[in-house]
């Protein structure tokens, strides 16, 4: 057994029963590490269920700042009898198992290659508390106290954390601190063996925040000026609109009247949700909806209408594991093609790929500008991992001098000066035409919005050249869009390898770590992170100027690779897929393994 001290570099997994209050205790543990200035990543691996099924919470601590999920469990906190046997098996050799020893562990669960840390959690609770609910809740806090003692936490962190958590409910602070102390005292008195996972206070996080992407999207919609949201509840997107509601309570109340500067409607389904959003945007309000894969499928027809009738809208797709209902509480990046070409006929949609909560905030706000400037849907492609897990992120910031970009909208005075208004006339030769909002002018600017073909003056037509002119103009607009969307992130000033690695969204964390790993093993690979579709020039150059490009994505069918091949005509032989589609966030180990394997093959066949 290795007893080498692992300071600020380990993975703890908590195995709980869902609905027992473990989430807040586990978060307390994670937040304490965050408060000690150490990079930390929690992943909630939960069932599609409200109460009674196994749920896991994994916390990776990384001094080096690697925030992706990591394989290998150094410490398992096993408090769920249902999953205990498998949980014990999953600990890496030399690792630790902290478990509730109120009941004797079956002999066949025992392993000789890991350390056992027994704590009679239930017994302590039964002795200390009479109320059944308290027994259940504080059991979780007690093991956090035990961990804090084992790992040598700075205990004052808990005092400040609980102080913040129970502001206004100060009565609850002391009982929680007591429960922590029960755990810590038990370890002090009873655990005499070795324990090599330690935390040490650092100042690595500076001004970083810890939050989830969905809340950040909700806040971004507030800052982006959304006044209308329509939605249908679906995991994992529900908390986007819930966050928007909460922030709206805070920021969108009209002081004088108590009335609200926002309307939020829970629709009867996703079709209605996006229909409402289209109606509101058509009528000049910034409006959005949030959904996940099954909802996106339902929204297809309306997305085609918005594309063809050129109506702005913002759609936040928090992707989950498909197809069909799939694994509703697991993550994936598998809606890419569905979103890029949503709806029948020739359509293309603008996609944004945020990687951090800060980008969820920024891109959501930007999406409103983009959709109004380009008069087309903008789809934010986030995922369950980013949306529902807490992430260390740069803090939110906003440039107060920035104005909302409302795009080409004619007001009363503009219309006064125009002889004849043509809704689909390409006046500026960029494919983007001028629109009017209903109610603007008594005699000018009204037109008929339709999903049927029409001419430049919005009149219905079945004239082939007129139809084709319009379709070609939409392509021109698409090309214009390249200059509007957020540009890719390059990881080097100059290309230094004939190999490139391309990734997007939540693969960023593990891909960056993999690049470091590969570099240490003498495989220098250039990196690029895509932030949007259509692809910008930076991405096009990167793809063209490397001999082989590894494309990291979290789906089975290499959807981003397909998109690149279709849109840029890049040969499939140049593009090597690095895929992960088990529903869990991709790990650096996995990426490194796949790339190393490919490199060996490539080198075998290409060296003469």
């Amino acid at each position: 057994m290795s007893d080498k001290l692992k300071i600020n570099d380990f993975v703890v997994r908590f195995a709980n029963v869902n609905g027992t209050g473990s989430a807040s205790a586990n978060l307390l543990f994670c937040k304490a590490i965050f408060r000690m200035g150490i990079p930390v990543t929690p992943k909630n691996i939960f069932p599609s269920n409200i109460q009674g099924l196994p749920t896991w919470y994994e916390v990776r601590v990384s001094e080096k700042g690697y925030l992706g999920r990591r394989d290998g469990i150094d410490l398992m906190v096993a408090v769920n009898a249902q999953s205990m046997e498998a949980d014990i098996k999953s600990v890496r050799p030399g690792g630790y198992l902290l478990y509730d020893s109120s009941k004797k562990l079956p002999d066949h669960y025992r392993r000789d290659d890991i350390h056992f840390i027994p704590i009679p959690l239930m017994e302590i609770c039964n002795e200390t508390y009479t109320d059944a609910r308290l027994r259940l809740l504080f059991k979780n806090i007690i093991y956090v106290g035990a961990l804090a003692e084992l790992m040598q936490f700075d205990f004052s962190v808990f005092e400040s954390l609980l102080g913040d958590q129970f502001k206004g409910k100060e009565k609850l602070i002391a009982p929680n601190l007591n429960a922590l102390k029960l755990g810590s005292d038990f370890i002090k008195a009873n655990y005499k063996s070795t324990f090599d996972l330690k935390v040490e206070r650092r100042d690595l996080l500076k001004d970083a925040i810890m939050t989830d992407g969905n809340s950040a999207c909700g806040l971004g919609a507030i800052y982006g000026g959304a006044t209308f949201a329509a939605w249908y509840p679906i995991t994992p997107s529900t908390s986007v609109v819930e966050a928007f509601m909460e922030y709206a309570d805070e920021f969108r109340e009209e002081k004088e009247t108590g009335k609200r500067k926002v309307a939020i409607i829970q629709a009867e389904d996703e079709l209605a949700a996006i229909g409402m959003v289209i109606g509101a945007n058509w009528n000049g309000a910034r409006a959005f909806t949030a959904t996940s894969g099954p909802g996106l499928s339902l929204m297809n027809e309306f997305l085609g209408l918005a594309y063809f009738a050129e109506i702005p809208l913002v759609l936040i797709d928090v992707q989950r594991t498909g197809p069909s209902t799939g694994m509703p509480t697991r993550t994936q990046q598998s809606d890419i093609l569905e979103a890029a070409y949503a709806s029948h006929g020739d359509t293309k949609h603008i996609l944004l790929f945020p990687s951090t909560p800060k980008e969820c905030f920024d891109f959501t706000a930007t999406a409103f500008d983009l959709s109004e400037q380009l008069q087309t849907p903008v789809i934010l492609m986030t995922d369950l991992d980013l949306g529902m897990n807490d992430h260390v992120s740069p803090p939110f910031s906003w440039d107060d001098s920035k104005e909302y970009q409302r795009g080409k909208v004619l007001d009363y005075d503009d219309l006064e000066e125009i002889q004849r208004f043509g809704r689909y006339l390409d006046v500026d030769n960029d494919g983007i035409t001028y629109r009017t909002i209903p109610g603007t002018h008594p005699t000018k600017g009204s037109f008929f919005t339709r999903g049927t073909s029409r001419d430049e003056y919005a009149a219905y037509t079945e004239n082939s050249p007129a139809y084709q002119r319009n379709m070609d103009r939409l392509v021109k607009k698409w090309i214009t869009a390249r200059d509007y969307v957020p540009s890719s992130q390059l990881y080097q000033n100059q290309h230094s390898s004939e190999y490139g690695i391309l990734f997007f969204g939540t693969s960023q964390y593990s891909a960056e770590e993999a690049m470091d790993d590969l570099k240490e093993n003498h495989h220098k690979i250039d990196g690029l992170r895509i932030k949007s579709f259509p692809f910008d020039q930076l991405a096009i150059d990167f793809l063209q100027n490397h001999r082989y490009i590894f494309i990291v994505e979290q789906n089975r069918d290499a959807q981003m690779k397909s998109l690149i091949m279709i849109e840029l005509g890049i040969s499939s032989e140049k593009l090597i897929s690095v895929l992960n589609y088990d529903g869990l966030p991709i790990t650096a180990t996995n990426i490194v393994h796949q790339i190393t394997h490919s490199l060996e093959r490539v080198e075998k066949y290409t060296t003469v």
Partner: protein
Amino acid sequence: MTFIKPKFRHPDLPKNKLGYTLSYYEGALSTLCAGCGHDSISAAIIQSAFEMNIEPHKLAKLSGIGCSSKTPTYFLGNSHGFNSVHGRMPSVATGANMANKELLYLGVSGDGDTASIGMGQFVHVIRRNLKMIYIVMNNGCYGLTKGQDSATADNGSISKTGIVNQFQAIDLCGLAIELGATFVAQSFSGDKKQLIPLIKAAMAHNGFAFINVISPCVTFNNNKGSTKSYDFVRDHLEATGTFDFVPEMEEITTNYESGERHAIKLHDGSFLQFNKLDSDWDPLDRFSAMKAVHQAREKNEIITGLLYLNQVAMDLHELVSTCDRPLNTLKKEDLCPGNGALATINAGLR
């Protein structure tokens, strides 16, 4: 093919209070079949908007897909229009209305667009009491795809090809009353005298105003044995009463011949004057309205008129408490909390 109507108008045509002539409320030339009931409804909409002195740009017309949903092209040519997707007009109207509470929203739909593919949205827009006028041009068949039965085709009705409909019909008015619609009316495209005051009253209503208009399809469902043919409908019409819409400040001049007389004040100050024919029925009582609908169905009659009215219910804007200013007029200053507020938010996330 684009039809263009001659623009020339006689200079002495009567004008409404806004100075617009009736022709200003017209649209493009209809491309529906000659004799289509829908064109009569379009004409009634034009007349109503003219008489109600509606600023065309303060009204938005919305529709789904189908023959009926084409009609917004044929009326109110100076209003913004939105021909959306099949069965989804209510959602688009909901969003549009939420964005700007100052416009009047006129939705037009058909029996396929409402009672089949759009049933879900129809039901839910009623629940929300969205302030809009929702007209169904109901002909019991799918015209644009050449005459298949729709969900409002009566059981036993015979189609043009001689097939007897085996399925139960969906009674849209009965359903609307059941769901708590706050204004439910039924009429016949051939009865302009009744239809125009109904549309005017719907325009004055502060909530969801539903008008189901039986509107025969001359091409595919006007045959013998069809219960939506002109002949059948005329023979089975049963008006609940005669009434007139009296705008605010106007002298009440309508004369009623007999029966019980009622005047209902609408929220905008106008009046509806009733002359009840059926003594059992009270348009302000939901149960009696339901009963009247059921009885008519039993007797194979088509009752027309304003069947039910509830002026007490709050509309969607009131329900979600939106501010008085339309949401689409709010500016960055009204909406964006600014960088300062982020300091507190960031601090709370550390």
